Every structure is written in structure tokens, then in C-alpha cells.
């Protein structure tokens, strides 16, 4: 069984602060995705990272794939209320395995 543990499970911070959330596994993945899910909606794909050590930036969001392709991090700079949501990582081998999620709340 390929498990992806995300931490922290819950995070509540003030607008303007920086934060990092983590996605860890003992399994190696060929690629890893990050999704954001808002209440009442399905997850929306933010990014796919493929190469060990790869870093991708999406405006204020920075995604990194671990060198060993077992873990990933998402860093948000100057968080805004619109960043509020459930962040899910998903590792890909034969199929996608979703992580446990980090519920992020940005307080105005």
C-alpha cells in the first residue's frame, strides 16, 4: 500500500504570512501532483512535478519534489484569504494515490 501523509493536517494563519505544507511517503513515485479543493467543489490540479529535486512556481506558490521522489512540499508566500482550502498531494505510479490533505485557513 502506497500511503501519502500530509502535515500539518490543519493550519490557520494570518493573511500575509508564509507557510509550508508537506507530503511524505515511504514509496517512490514517478511524479507527484498537488490539488486544491474548495468547499462543495472537486479538487483542481495545481501542478505536476516529475523529476527528483524539481521546483515549480505558480505565482506565490512554490512546489518542490524531493530528490528521492518520495516527498514534496508546497510553500506559499504572503498568504491571502483566497488561498484557503484543502490541499491534496497525489503520487503517481500505475495510478494516483491521494494524500490525507492539509486544510488551510487564511485569516484576513
Amino acid at each position: 500500500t502506497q500511503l501519502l501523509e500530509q502535515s500539518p493536517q490543519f493550519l490557520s494563519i494570518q493573511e500575509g504570512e508564509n507557510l509550508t505544507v508537506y507530503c511524505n511517503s515511504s514509496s517512490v513515485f514517478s511524479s507527484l501532483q498537488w490539488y486544491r479543493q474548495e468547499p462543495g467543489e472537486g479538487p483542481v490540479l495545481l501542478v505536476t512535478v516529475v523529476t527528483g529535486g524539481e521546483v515549480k512556481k505558480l505565482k506565490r506558490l512554490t512546489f518542490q519534489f524531493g530528490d528521492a521522489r518520495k516527498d514534496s512540499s508546497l510553500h506559499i508566500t504572503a498568504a491571502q484569504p483566497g488561498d484557503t482550502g484543502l490541499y491534496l498531494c497525489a503520487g503517481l505510479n500505475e495510478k494516483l494515490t491521494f494524500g490525507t490533505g492539509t486544510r488551510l485557513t487564511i485569516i484576513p
Partner: protein
Amino acid sequence: GAGVSQSPSNKVTEKGKDVELRCDPISGHTALYWYRQRLGQGLEFLIYFQGNSAPDKSGLPSDRFSAERTGESVSTLTIQRTQQEDSAVYLCASSSLTTPYEQYFGPGTRLTVT
């Protein structure tokens, strides 16, 4: 264009009843996935359809769960003799043959078993 749609958006049913959940994928998407999401948790894979190939049913939690898809169109997830632990949001996603792991999700069906 239109995204993935699911119906109903909410379903309340009594324990022991059967329910059918519907998913309309994005037109032209050959792959279709069903997931279950319990309150505040991540997604649990249920079943995967790819074109006319035999579906991957490895995630179905029990024989009370089944799903059908006709060609590359609508899919129906059926839960027989519902139990309270079946209460969850059921999400459907579809993807294209060229980018099979870029999944586009529907809004989900929230199922409550009383």
C-alpha cells in the same frame, strides 16, 4: 467547454436502500474515475474506466458497490443496501488519452445515509 458534472448534488437515503450516482465526463475524455471522500479526508480510489477496456475495480470496498460506463460517456455508481459508513462525498473525474493523469473533477455527490 463543459466540465465534469455529477448528479444529484446531494442525496439523503435510509439505511438499506439502494442509490445511484451519475457522472457525465468531459466530452472526449476516455478515462473516468470514481473516488470517495469522507469528511475532511483525502480521496479514496474506487474504480477506473479507460475506453472499452475492463475497468479497474480494485478500490471498491465491498460487493455492495458497482459501477458501469457505456463507451466513453456517462457512468453510474450504484451502492446497494446502503450503510451509515457509506456516507461521504463521491467524486468523479475524467481525463484524456493524451494527458491521462491530469484529472478534472466534478463537484461531487454528497451522500448521507440515515
